[in-house]
């Protein structure tokens, strides 16, 4: 790695940190911290995008970075914090699988993700191709997090983390999607968050809590 | 259809009508002798039929037309059956009209009408008799048909005269299969004609009777026809037996001489058969009604065994 340019080294560091953050989220039980970790993930993404934009001179990546900054670092975490305050949910209950177990499964997933990304990376011509595996790992870890969490809010955080992974994947594989699509995606996520916000209030109103075990009535094995 | 066939036909019908009560009388006489009783007259059946014809009829209040026409139909069916069975000659005018299967069908028709007529009045005995009669019938009929099948297989036809002719003209040979079926046939004959192991023709003991229960409500001419038809049925069965198992002596041509010869032969066969029947009746005891199916199942089994033996040995 000695002759890797500094910006690339930075990029790889960002990628590694993203993965680390994913693991951190997996083990985190405080909802507030989860949101903070999410925001940090967004920030890292933003930095990575900027680095990439600077390196490739791709103008629309600057725009993407700005979008990420606005949406994922400020707007969404802010919205989530607001929700947490309004809804008074600070702690997630014990996850389905204990933390150690989750981490172990997460590790296996990372191995799988790297294996998965191998053929893709081999074909990629981008400078960041080695990061594709990390993007896949982030996505799958977020998935895992959604599976193991019992609070609606932490599930949402997982969902957003998955979105981050996707964004990072797009970035590292193809230097981002076309502008219009990216805008559409961003808009969708924003709307999704708004809808979620409405949802939380409705759920809260109905059940007095955001615990997911209230939402287990519609089933077949009665 | 030439004249001699027609003549044979008419002769056979008349002979059957005339001889049937006589045969019945003969069986009764033999039975009485065998049982050490003083025998009734040989002509008693004629006399009782005549007596019945001269009486006023009493019909139950709710008897329908079916009740009244049934005796005629039964009598008609038995008469026509007699016309089909080659008792004396095998060349008869009506023989192409009905084969052995149709013969069984005719018997079944008669049975059905008797049973329906018995149910018509709505008495407990009538329907009981009808039920039992039909029970015996549905078990006896297949056995009879299997017996006839065997003969048909031997002779490759179902026409009774042709079977008889075939068997009569064959060189004398042992047919082990026929031995089985002969036993079966005897059993069917006993059952179908309300003879002893199944029914007692001489009893009105209510719990056991079959045939008499069917006729309980009949009187006078209707009863006479029914009794006559019953005698005809016995006669017919005997003749079927002759045609299948002892066809020798039957006229296989058209000559008047052959027919003339066949008359005493038939009389001899009838006399022997009557005696044999009486013997069987004397030697056996009346079965409970519930045992009747077993009896008939045995008959059926024998018939089938005969068939199998035939198929196995080709004889």
């Amino acid at each position, binding site marked *: 790695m000695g002759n890797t340019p500094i910006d690339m080294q930075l990029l790889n560091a960002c990628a590694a940190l993203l993965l680390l953050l994913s693991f951190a989220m997996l083990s985190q039980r405080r909802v507030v911290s989860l949101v903070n970790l999410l925001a940090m993930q967004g920030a890292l993404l933003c930095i990575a995008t900027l680095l990439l934009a600077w390196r490739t001179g791709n103008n629309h990546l600057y725009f993407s970075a700005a979008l990420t900054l606005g949406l994922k670092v400020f707007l969404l975490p802010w919205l989530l914090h607001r929700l947490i305050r309004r809804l008074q949910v600070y702690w997630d209950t014990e996850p389905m699988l204990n933390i150690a177990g989750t981490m172990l499964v997460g590790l296996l997933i990372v191995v799988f993700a790297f*294996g998965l990304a191998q053929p893709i990376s081999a074909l990629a011509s981008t400078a960041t191709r080695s990061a594709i595996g990390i993007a896949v790992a982030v996505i799958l870890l977020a998935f895992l997090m959604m599976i193991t969490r019992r609070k609606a809010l932490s599930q949402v955080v997982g969902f957003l983390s998955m979105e981050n992974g996707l964004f990072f994947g797009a970035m590292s594989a193809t230097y981002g999607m076309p502008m219009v699509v990216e805008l559409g995606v961003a808009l969708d996520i924003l709307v999704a968050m708004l809808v979620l916000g409405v949802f939380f209030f409705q759920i809260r109103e109905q059940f007095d809590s955001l615990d997911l075990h209230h939402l287990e009535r519609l089933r077949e094995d009665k | 259809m030439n004249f001699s066939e027609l003549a044979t036909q008419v002769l056979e019908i008349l002979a059957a009508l005339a001889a049937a009560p006589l045969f019945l009388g003969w069986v009764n006489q033999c039975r009485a002798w065998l049982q050490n009783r003083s025998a009734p007259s040989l002509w008693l059946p004629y006399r009782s039929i005549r007596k019945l014809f001269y009486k006023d009829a009493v019909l139950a209040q*709710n*008897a329908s037309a079916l009740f009244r026409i049934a005796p005629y139909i039964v009598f008609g069916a038995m008469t026509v059956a007699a016309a089909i069975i080659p008792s004396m000659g095998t060349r008869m005018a009506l023989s192409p009209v009905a084969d052995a299967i149709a013969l069984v*069908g005719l018997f079944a028709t008669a049975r059905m009408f008797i049973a329906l007529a018995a149910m*018509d009045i709505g008495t407990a005995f009538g329907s009981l008799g009808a039920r039992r009669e039909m029970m015996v019938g549905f078990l006896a009929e297949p056995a009879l048909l299997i017996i006839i099948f065997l003969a048909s297989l031997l002779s490759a036809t179902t026409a009774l005269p042709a079977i008889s002719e075939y068997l009569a003209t064959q060189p004398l040979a042992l047919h082990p299969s026929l031995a089985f079926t002969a036993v079966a046939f005897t059993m069917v004959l006993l059952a179908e004609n309300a003879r002893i192991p199944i029914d007692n023709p001489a009893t009105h003991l209510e719990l056991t009777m079959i045939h008499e229960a069917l006729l309980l409500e009949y009187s006078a001419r209707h009863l006479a026809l029914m009794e006559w038809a019953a005698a005809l049925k016995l006669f017919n069965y005997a003749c079927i037996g002759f045609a299948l198992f002892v066809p020798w002596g039957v006229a296989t041509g058209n000559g008047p001489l052959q027919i003339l010869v066949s008359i005493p032969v038939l009389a001899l066969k009838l006399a022997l058969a009557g005696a044999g029947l009486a013997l069987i009746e004397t030697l056996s005891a009346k079965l409970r009604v519930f045992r009747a199916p077993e009896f008939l199942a045995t008959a059926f089994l024998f018939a089938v065994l005969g068939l199998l033996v035939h198929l196995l040995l080709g004889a």
Partner: protein
Amino acid sequence: MTSISPLTACLALIALWGAIGLAGLLRPASLRFAGRALFLLGALCGLSLAGVAVWSLGMPTERLVLPLGLPDLPFHVRRDALTSVFLFLLGMASTGISIFAAGYFRKGTGASPGLLCLQYHLFLASMGFVLLADDAYGFMVAWETMALSSYFLVTTQHRVAEIRRAGFLYLLIAHLGAMAILLCFGVLQGGSWQFTFDAMRSAQLQPAWATIAFLLALFGFGAKAGLVPLHVWLPEAHPAAPSPVSALMSGVMLKMAVYGALRVTFDLLGEPVWWWGLVPLGIGLFTAFYGVVFAAVQTDMKRLLAYSSIENIGVAFVGVGLAVVFFGTGLKVLGALALVAALYHCLNHALMKSLLFLGTGAVLHATGERNLGKLGGLIHRMPWVAWLTLIGALAIAGLPPLNGFVSEWLLLQAFLFADDIPHSFINMLIPMSAALVVLSAALAGYVMVKFFGIIFLGTPREASLSQARDCGKLERLGLLWLACGCVALGLLPAQVIAHLNLVAEELLGTSLPSSTSSWWLLAPLPERQASYGPLVLLMAVAGVVALTFLCVRLFYHRRERRGPAWDCGFVRLDARMQDTAEGFGQPIRHIFQPFFRIERELPTPFDRAPRYRVTVSDRIWRALYEPIGSAVQWLADVCAFLQQGRIAIYLLYSFVTLIVLLAVML
């Protein structure tokens, strides 16, 4: 204008049936219009169809392609001799039934007359189209429409839970059967992937596949026909339907199954293998026997008839199986004989069973009772119905000189000469089968004595029966039509067989040597010397009867008195002392005990109000259908376990799916 061919005429008549049905919706509430006039028109249509069918019988095969259906598979229609025979059956039976129905439906019985009219005529039209269809799609459409329209007719009285259950069972089994038929067509096309029947005819199937196709067809058509063990719907659905519909279903619809089996076996499969025939033969025998034994213990008159239909369809399948065996072993003439016997039996059963069902309908209308234990003595109140039904009962009992006997006779003839089959074991089995057929036929006599005797003879078992009235003119006409058909088919078998022979010629390539002797004599195999002349037989019996009657009248006629019944001197006779339906069935229950599942409730000596109850039910229901039902339920429970309502589990499913698929893709 081009000349009308029989095929176009048939299509037009079938379309007319459809149009009549739709016309019923114009004034659905009007009984006079939708319930009477249109039904009479439908009867006329049926009569014309029968006429066209007879007219067309000798004509060469015709084909036509209709501009309907799937884009690549338009409806093909074809008329050949087999079709014509069944069209004749449909036309003949439906004429009588429609006339009867015109007088039958009353106000306030469930569905509106218009709806009934629509369903009824749609039913008829679909049956007609089943016969004409010459491609798998058209056939299936008609076949299922037939099932559907009859389902609606069965559930006319849908407020009764039992009837709904019956309808459900019926449609379910019909649908399962249809699926088997569909699979059968899928096999039959044999790699050409053309679903016209022509393609199937020319397809060369491997023997194993051909066998599978045959078995599938047997399952599919057997479900419709009511072969044991697929018969369970029949005794439920037939009693549930209004009587004209029962008549149509039992008399005509079941024959469509026979038609289908014949079409597939002899036409589409081409060269059946001889041992295939053993399957329908065996099943048919068992079905015949099973049906009649159960018929003997029924207490509901329509259920009794339904079981009797099972018996008769079994007999028809015996004929089909025998035909296959003979044909496959090269005994083509005997094959033709068996085939003709089966066809004849279908024709007979269509008429006589319709007659009997309509008779029960008339009784039902007059008394409101289906239970045999509450009927009796109706011959006095309803002479028309009673005497005409008697003809049907005698015919179905297989008594000469009526039609039921003819087909039985033909079948037995076929059985008897089976000894030419070059397989000695089969050779032995076949006469045994004949014994079973005869046993069933004899039992049918038992059943019919029970049926007729308990309903019409004796004294009324209920006081209300004295109010019963004979049926109306149209109903009488319908019954009369069918009864005449029974008699005609019974008396003129040679003519009928001459026509049925064309089918044998077409399907087997051989026909019976024409009976050269005379027109009144039935002698299908001249060299066998076996012959049957019902007309002369009838004349002989009638002659003897007339002569006897005359003699008695002339010489011995004495006074006739009416008095109370003698009954061995028992005086306090009442109607309840007659044999009941249960009592009449007792010997059968006793003899064939292993067939039934019997539940008895016996009183103890100390009971204040002693009650005796016995129910007889089908073992097959317990042995086959209930396990299937619980297996499905169990599987459903297993599937339901997957869905526990927890979103995390659901996410896990997605996750695992994703991982597995990715792993597969890698």
